[in-house]
């Protein structure tokens, strides 16, 4: 299974405080370990939300709202994408992550990624075929 591992933002990360050199080198060593274990698929740090933008879908309207955003604890500071055998394995790896926010309470969230088999073996393609059929019917009717 794949899991998305989300590092939540803190006030420091939102303030644009860069991680110390020590933390960077610890993180690099940890990432290397992930690669050697065949677990790492992707991962990066994110700029604070002041550099980010939101597009809000409100019916037919698309509102663009520039950062920073207020709800610090719900924001993200970084992510990984891992290939693991189980959620238990992911939890053990997360416990080994060097504390990403020294001096603050860091929260790392693990979210399993939908895989094809989660939809049932046949559901997606079948639905897609149905959708296609419908579309053709609609087009034919026009």
């Amino acid at each position, binding site marked *: *299974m794949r899991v998305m591992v989300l590092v939540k933002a803190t006030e420091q990360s939102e303030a644009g405080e860069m991680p110390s050199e020590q933390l960077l080198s610890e993180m690099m060593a940890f990432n290397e370990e992930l690669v*050697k274990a*065949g677990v790492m698929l*992707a991962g990066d740090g994110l700029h604070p939300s002041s550099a980010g933008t939101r597009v809000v879908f409100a019916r037919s309207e698309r509102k663009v709202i520039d950062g920073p955003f207020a709800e610090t604890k719900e924001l993200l500071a970084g992510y990984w994408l891992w290939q693991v055998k189980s959620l238990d394995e992911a939890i*053990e790896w997360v416990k080994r992550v060097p504390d990403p926010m020294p001096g603050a309470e860091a929260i790392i969230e693990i979210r399993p990624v939908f895989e*094809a*088999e989660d939809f049932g073996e046949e559901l997606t*393609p*079948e639905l897609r075929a149905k959708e296609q059929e419908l579309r053709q019917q609609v087009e034919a009717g026009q």
Partner: protein
Amino acid sequence: MGDVRRTLDGVWRIESARLIAGIARVVRDVGLAEDLAQEAFVAALEQWPESGVPDNPGAWLMATAKHRAIDRLRRAGVHDRKTQELAREIERRGEYENPDLAAAIDDPFDDDLLRLIFTACHPVLSTDARVALTLRLLGGLTTTEIARAFLVPEATVAQRIVRAKRTLSAARVPFEIPERQGLAGRLASVLEVVYLVFNEGYVATVGERWLRPELLEEALRLGRILAELLPAEAEVHGLVALMELQASRARARIGPGGAPVLLLDQDRSRWDWMLVERGLAALERAYRTGDALGPYTLQAAIAACHARARAAEDTDWERIVALYDGLAQLMPSPVVELNRAVAIGMACGPAAALELVDAISEEPELREYHLLPTVRGDLLERLGRKAEARREFQRAAAMTGNMRERAVLLERMVACAPGNGS
């Protein structure tokens, strides 16, 4: 208790291979090393609910297994001096538990892990035994998990593993990384095991399911680990590239009703483009070693031709034919010839391809191979020789063990019946 079990399962997945490898290097017996690691696991299961989970669970397991190793050797009445030597050796290895050292580039754990891989895939073992032992020792999979993945009874897998361990002991297979001159052959044996696991996950040879993601992921993981352990070996990267590129199409291979969709009919937007990127990057790593292209790298290069084509019509068939020429020289086999014929069929038309297929159709190796009549049927159909095509699809359907594939072949057979289509 439930929490401890979960923690332990997670720790086992991460640590077990290194644990077994570390112990095996000291006791010089992979079977004994695995028993000791299992004992440490059981001890943790008993003690951790009381004592709490230690800060460094991996180190705890290693220390416990080592103490048991010394106990075991003492009880077996091994000569005192030898036991002491061993105890010293075990103590000395304690320094490796220092995390700074473990992170050093010259990681002794990596060498142990390589020794374990080469031992589990030793040519003295049958292929089945190598596969079971590798999944058990390197993947940390239980006998039940392996049995379920391969749809064989648990007792069969258990016996394979017991016999494999016994064979390794009896043959006195040393726990070591092969010397330079023996490396290529031994590495081929390792790569074969990994690719076999992958293929069993990718095209299940038996049963109703078309894909077994757990085996696919396990093979990919083993390949990625190997690529880091042996970065100078082109074929390791070649195999990883091949697996990543094939796996990238897994989602697109299943159509409505669970039926398989052939490569050229696949909706390419459903490919996993991250895996495509990873596959192309691994292929690049293989090229960069500067070695001559081996069979896995060549196959990966062929897969890359497909991956680079945005639509099936854009496929560079001339290049694929050239790559198959190279592959046929490297490992001449009727199966490769058959694939080359398919590529020629695309590059130069079905008539030229049919000639090639007919030339190899009597090969004993292809007698039971359902893809021979499948390909013949396809070429005959394209040539408008429907009656002959129909017979070939029927033959192919009777030969395949996969029910999903059989259904597709029977459909094609029906489509070739007189009065059906043009």
